[in-house]
C-alpha cells in the first residue's frame, strides 16, 4: 500500500471493504449519458442495468453496460485491482476468480451475467494480516518473480486443492495449465500447491 498508485485508490477501496453490508457504487452521470445508446432497445432487451455482486462477502450495486466484463467491473468500478488483466481473451489465467465457488476467467464473464452471484478475489483470501495458506506457500516456495500472474495462480491453486486435483505433480500441472507464468516459476508453483495439499490431507 506504499505504492503511490495504490494509495490513490486506497480510500475508496478501504471504504468498500469496511463499509458494511451494502456499499453503493454509482457511475458518473456524465459518463452514463455519453455512452448511452441514442434509442432505447425494445423490451426485453436492455442497454444498461443495475446489478448486485457479492464480492468477498461485501454486497455492491453497480450500473453496467451489457458489454462490461466482470474483470473490468472488479478492477475499474470496485477498485479491486488485485485481479489482473493479462491477455483479456481467456488465454493466460491472470484474471482467475471464484464465481459461486468455482474458478473462472473474469475476462470471459459479462458482469451482467453474474448479477446476484458470489465472487471471491485475491483480496478476499487473507484474514486480516494472516495470509491464506496458499499465499504463504507461494512466498515460502519462491513461486513467483514479477508477480503479475500470481493473484490468478493463487486463486486457481486454492480451487485446485479444493477440487482434489493434487494427487501428483503431473496432476497439479495439468489442472493448473490455465495459468501462464512468463517468468516460468512453474516448478515452484507446483511445489507450493503440493505443499498446501499435503498439509490439508
Amino acid at each position: 500500500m506504499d505504492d503511490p498508485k495504490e494509495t490513490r485508490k486506497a480510500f475508496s477501496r478501504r471504504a468498500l471493504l469496511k463499509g458494511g453490508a451494502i456499499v453503493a457504487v454509482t457511475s458518473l452521470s456524465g459518463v452514463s449519458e455519453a455512452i448511452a445508446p441514442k434509442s432505447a432497445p425494445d423490451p426485453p432487451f436492455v442497454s444498461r442495468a443495475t446489478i448486485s455482486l457479492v464480492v468477498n462477502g461485501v454486497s455492491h450495486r453497480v450500473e453496467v453496460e451489457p458489454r462490461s466484463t466482470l474483470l473490468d467491473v472488479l478492477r475499474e468500478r470496485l477498485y479491486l485491482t488485485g485481479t489482473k488483466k493479462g491477455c483479456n481473451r481467456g488465454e493466460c489465467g491472470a484474471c482467475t476468480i471464484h464465481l459461486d465457488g468455482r474458478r473462472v476467467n473474469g475476462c470471459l464473464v459479462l458482469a451482467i451475467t453474474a448479477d446476484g452471484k458470489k465472487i471471491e478475489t485475491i483480496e478476499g483470501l487473507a484474514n486480516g494480516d494472516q495470509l491464506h495458506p496458499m499465499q504463504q506457500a507461494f512466498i515460502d516456495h519462491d513461486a513467483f518473480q514479477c508477480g503479475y500472474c500470481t493473484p490468478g495462480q493463487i486463486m486457481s491453486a486454492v480451487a485446485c486443492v479444493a477440487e482434489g486435483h493434487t494427487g501428483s505433480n503431473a496432476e497439479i500441472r495439468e489442472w493448473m495449465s490455465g495459468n501462464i507464468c512468463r517468468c516460468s516459476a512453474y516448478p515452484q508453483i507446483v511445489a507450493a500447491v503440493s505443499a498446501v495439499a499435503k498439509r490439508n490431507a
Partner: protein
Amino acid sequence: MKNFSYAMPTSIHQTIEFAATSDAMILAGGTELLNWTRIGIVEPSKLVDITRVAGLEGIERLPNGMVRIGALTKLNDVALHPLIRKSYPVLSTSILKAASAQIRNLATIGGNPLQRVRCPYFRADEPTPCNKRIPRSGCAALHGLNEKHAIFGWTEDCVAVQPSDPAAALAALDAVLVTQSKQGERRIPATTFHTLPSEDPTAHSVLQHGELISSIELGDAVPKSAYLKIRERESYEYATVSAAVALEMDGSVIRRARIALGSVAMRPWRLVETERRLAGLRSDSPEIIPAVKAGFDDARPLSMNRYKIRLAQNTTVRAIEMAVQA
C-alpha cells in the same frame, strides 16, 4: 467490443422468441462469443443470455437406456460425471484434454461444438482474405500458413479445421444434437452438424439463426472407448490431430469400430473404410495398421501439412490400442 443490448430469458420458449429477432445471438458460457466480439468476427446488436434458462442443465439416463446431457451442462461437470466417465470414457477424456480448468467451468457442452476455426487468417485482427470472415474474399491459408490445416474435405475456398475435442468424441459416439426453434424441434447427427466447405465455405455448422441447442443425446454405453490428442504442448493447447475411438468387442475380436478424427477437417472425420475393415479383426491383428491406412486414401495434404497424414495414422493406431485396453 461494440456494445449490444441484452436479455436474460428464463424459459426455452422465451429464448427462441428473443433469439429469433434480427441480429440477436445466443450467449451461454461465453468463452468463444466474447472473444469473437472483441476481434470483430461477429458484431451482434443483441445478446440472449441463456445461463438462467430452466431445464437445460444436468445429465440423465432415459428409460430407453440413452443418456441425455442438457446443453448448459458445464464441460467439467460432463467430464467428471460418474456415468460419463464409466460409460463414455472417450467423451470424458476429450473434454478434460480441452481448454483449461477455468474455461471448462464456464464453457458448456452445447456451446462447445459451436466454436469456430482457429485459422490465424480467420482470427486476424486486421482483415485478410478469409471466406469465413468475409464471404468471397478468398482463402489466405490455401497457399499461406497452413501447417495445422485440413487433410480431408477441404476446397480452395477453405482449408481450416474444426478444433473441438468433444465434437470428435460425439461424432464417434453417433451422438445427436437436439435443437429448438420457432420451427420446432430438430435432431441433428453430430457427424453432420459441421459444414464442409464443399457445402458452404462461409458456414461453420448447420445451426440456423434463432435455433437453440437444448440437449445432446448419447446411445448405448461404449466403455471400450478412448481419445488421444496430439499437440505441441502437453496441456492447454489445441490439437494438431486427435482420434476418438469407440469399440464394441466380442472377447478379443472387434465387432464394431467407430473412429472420428479431430482437427483434420471442417468436421470430425469418420474413417468409414477403416471402420469397415476393422470389424471382425482380433485386437492384436497385424491387419489393423493396413486397415487404418485404408481410411486415408482420400487424404490430401496442403503445402505445409503433409506430416499430418502420418501423424493422424499413428494417432489412430495408438487410440485403437487404448480403447482395447479401456
